[in-house]
């Protein structure tokens, strides 16, 4: 989706303001929000990709004027409804009125092992990668209405493969509950001069899945 989250290349947001000795959370509610999303993510039945997609569906004006954890809050509220864990009315009233779907919450003792357990999004597949380091590729000119990780500013651009990471869960599929559909994931290098048309010698790297790319 070409949503407000896809802000690569946008001007007008002003300078990047770095805070000295920035705390982990800026308000107690942020900490609660962080914990709620993490705890519900363990039991809710949605994937990380679905979680991202939910955060991106916020009304764009609301999205860019709200803070990071507000995006999470909106995403979580949406996911709870979608997965039958809470109704809109319950969220507004902050009271449970419908019998909850049975889930087993992660107990406090299990958090540390869960957080530190090695995880992976790599999945072996029975295919060979189409591209290898050094290959020239062109990103597809695609504008899906669903979640994707190919940003608008990199569509239709020519770049060079610099690494292959094996086959990884494809967000475009996984975010829609259509399965993990693992595909080869590459790091692709683009010249800033190609992407933006100015003379800079800078380069941009993006991690892109094989369906985003075509040979050129």
């Amino acid at each position: 989706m070409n949503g407000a989250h896809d802000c690569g290349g946008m001007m007008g947001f002003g300078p990047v303001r770095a805070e000295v000795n920035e705390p982990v959370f800026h308000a107690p509610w942020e900490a609660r929000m962080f914990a709620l999303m993490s705890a519900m993510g363990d039991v809710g039945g949605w994937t990380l990709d679905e979680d991202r997609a939910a955060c991106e569906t916020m009304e764009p004006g609301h999205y860019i004027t709200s803070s990071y954890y507000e995006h999470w809050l909106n995403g979580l509220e949406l996911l709870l409804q979608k997965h039958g864990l809470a109704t809109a009315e319950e969220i507004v009233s902050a009271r449970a009125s419908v019998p909850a779907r049975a889930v087993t919450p992660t107990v406090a003792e299990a958090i540390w092992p869960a957080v530190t357990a090695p995880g992976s999004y790599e999945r072996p597949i029975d295919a060979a990668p189409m591209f290898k380091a050094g290959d020239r590729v062109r990103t597809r000119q695609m504008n899906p209405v669903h979640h994707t990780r190919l940003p608008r500013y990199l569509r239709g651009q020519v770049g060079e493969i610099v690494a292959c990471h094996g086959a990884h869960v494809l967000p475009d599929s996984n975010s829609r509950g259509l399965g993990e559909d693992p595909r080869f994931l590459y790091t692709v290098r683009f010249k800033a001069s190609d992407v933006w048309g100015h003379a800079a010698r800078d380069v941009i790297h993006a991690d892109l899945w094989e369906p985003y790319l075509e040979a050129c």
Partner: protein
Amino acid sequence: MPHDGHHHDHDHGEGSELSPIALRVKALESLLVEKGYVDPKALDVLIDTYETKIGPRNGARVVAKAWTDPAFADWLKRDATAAIASLGYTGRQGEHMVALFNTPETHNMVVCTLCSCYPWPVLGLPPVWYKSMPYRSRAVIEPREVLKDFGVTLPDDREVRVWDSTAEVRYLVIPERPAGTGGWSEEKLAALVTRNAMIGTGLVSLPA
């Protein structure tokens, strides 16, 4: 900043408390008048002009004349600015006019993705939806979905041609004349023509 922007600013009756933006506009008006930059009566004339004198009835007259007068339609195709000026519609935001004729092959639709450019002398001030983010963002990438928002569905084989008004050229859509209007007067035809049809988000049809 001493204000906040809401999408829907609620109007307040006379004598009741004004919204922050209403207060801010009022304060600026009195300041600019005090500084002598603007004539308060000129503001009244400007408002009255676009509230009561210039509006989509002008464009409807252009369309009706194009439907009934082939020489005028031809002139409109060659030099819309001059043809439209011959009816007395000239001026601001209509300095360089182009008329887009809908046909069974092509449906035209006008947008300004970068601001809200609109042919004022023939259509007046644009409606809120024309200036809204959904229209400005979606008209170029999914025009048929936008048309559905207006209840318009076109055959797949008809080209939807969107015109993004990036310069000072202003576009007026000349919709197709509905069947069953043979022999109608210009006035009667003009009454059928809606603003949306002249932007390209509507079609002209006979009253049910």
